[in-house]
């Protein structure tokens, strides 16, 4: 049974009143939902609150969940919307405004191969030392919230372009554009850091 089918079976059990099935769904997705919320909201407690709220909202709405989309795209959409609501309520909005309709300005050309040469294409946990982890957070923080979300949903949660379009309620062309610029900017920031500022910050584990 695929993950989507397994989720659908769990959702049906929850719709039949089985709360233990909902626990399985929570435990399956709580870390990813929390990581997504933490990528939008800077505060851990706020992210935890939004994560909890997202699951409660999903539970309340599960009776009307048709299962046409996967449970995970649904819970990610709820989480993203709650994060946006939270930012609006608390006047935080985006630290970096972004408008898809505006022409894109080059994010800065990243010197090619710096990331992969220094870290390898499959870096292990040990490379994520404090300094690099902080730089990663800093780089993410320089992205508009929309870019952070799409990058996490694509790279961490593995959503397809179609699923991203559905989850974020944007056209597929916008998905491609946002992803392109989000990656380009992240690579440029990290490459600058790795190339010059902190030569000892990371070690290529594959070497």
């Amino acid at each position, binding site marked *: 049974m695929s993950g989507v089918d397994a989720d659908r079976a769990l959702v049906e059990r929850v719709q039949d009143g089985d709360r233990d099935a909902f626990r399985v769904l929570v435990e399956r997705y709580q870390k990813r939902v929390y990581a997504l919320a933490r990528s939008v909201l800077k505060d851990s407690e706020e992210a935890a609150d939004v994560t909890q709220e997202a699951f409660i909202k999903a539970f309340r709405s599960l009776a009307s969940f048709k299962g046409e989309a996967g449970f995970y795209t649904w819970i990610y959409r709820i989480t993203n919307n709650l994060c946006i609501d939270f930012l609006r309520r608390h006047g935080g909005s985006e630290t970096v405004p972004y408008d898809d309709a505006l022409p894109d300005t080059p994010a800065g050309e990243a010197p090619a*191969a710096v990331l992969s040469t220094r870290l390898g294409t499959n870096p292990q946990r040990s490379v994520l030392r404090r300094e690099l982890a902080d730089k990663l957070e800093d780089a993410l923080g320089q992205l508009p919230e929309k870019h952070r979300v799409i990058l996490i949903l694509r*790279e961490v949660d593995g959503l397809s372009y179609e699923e991203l379009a559905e989850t974020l309620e944007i056209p597929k062309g916008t998905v491609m554009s946002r992803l392109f610029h989000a990656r380009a900017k992240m690579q440029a920031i990290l490459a600058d850091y790795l190339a010059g500022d902190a030569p000892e910050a990371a070690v290529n584990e594959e070497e």
Partner: protein
Amino acid sequence: MKKSEDPSKAIVEVELTNLPCGQARESLERFRDGDLPPPEATAVQAHLSVCPACAARLSDAATLGALLRLRAEAIGEGLPGGFSDAILAALPGRPRPFGWFFAGRRRNLILGAVALAAVAAAVALPLVGGRMRRSAAVRLRAAEDEAHLRGAAIRRPEAKPVVFENDLGQTVVWVAPDAPSPRQQGDKR
């Protein structure tokens, strides 16, 4: 596109025109994400084999993805213990005996049946009630006629049946069987 020189080998060699770097780079993301149609993916693949710079950019994208996954993993591990318990405890509604039977789709089925029964009752009761009321009226007239014909009118022409409605909403006709006659009353005096 040209056929192989050896006609015994049904191999079709594809002449690939190397993409310009700019065009290849526009497609790199989709190539990495598996979103390119096969002909375009083949063209990008061919470009990558001869262009170290674009190949390096693709590798950088893979590194970035891996870093973000490591970050998410570390964040997820920072979730407080018992987090799922807290979520489950905060869910609306509480488990109850036979809750599984009354919840979800079963509950909807039961509610549907109850609603159907209620509609049926709403339609049927006025009819039954009307029949009951008509029946009581007929009984009342019959009782009055009978009371009149049964000698009561002869012995106590002033006596009339007592008609009242009981707690069940039924019309009751009560004919006092042994009401004292004026003569008997007079005897007591």
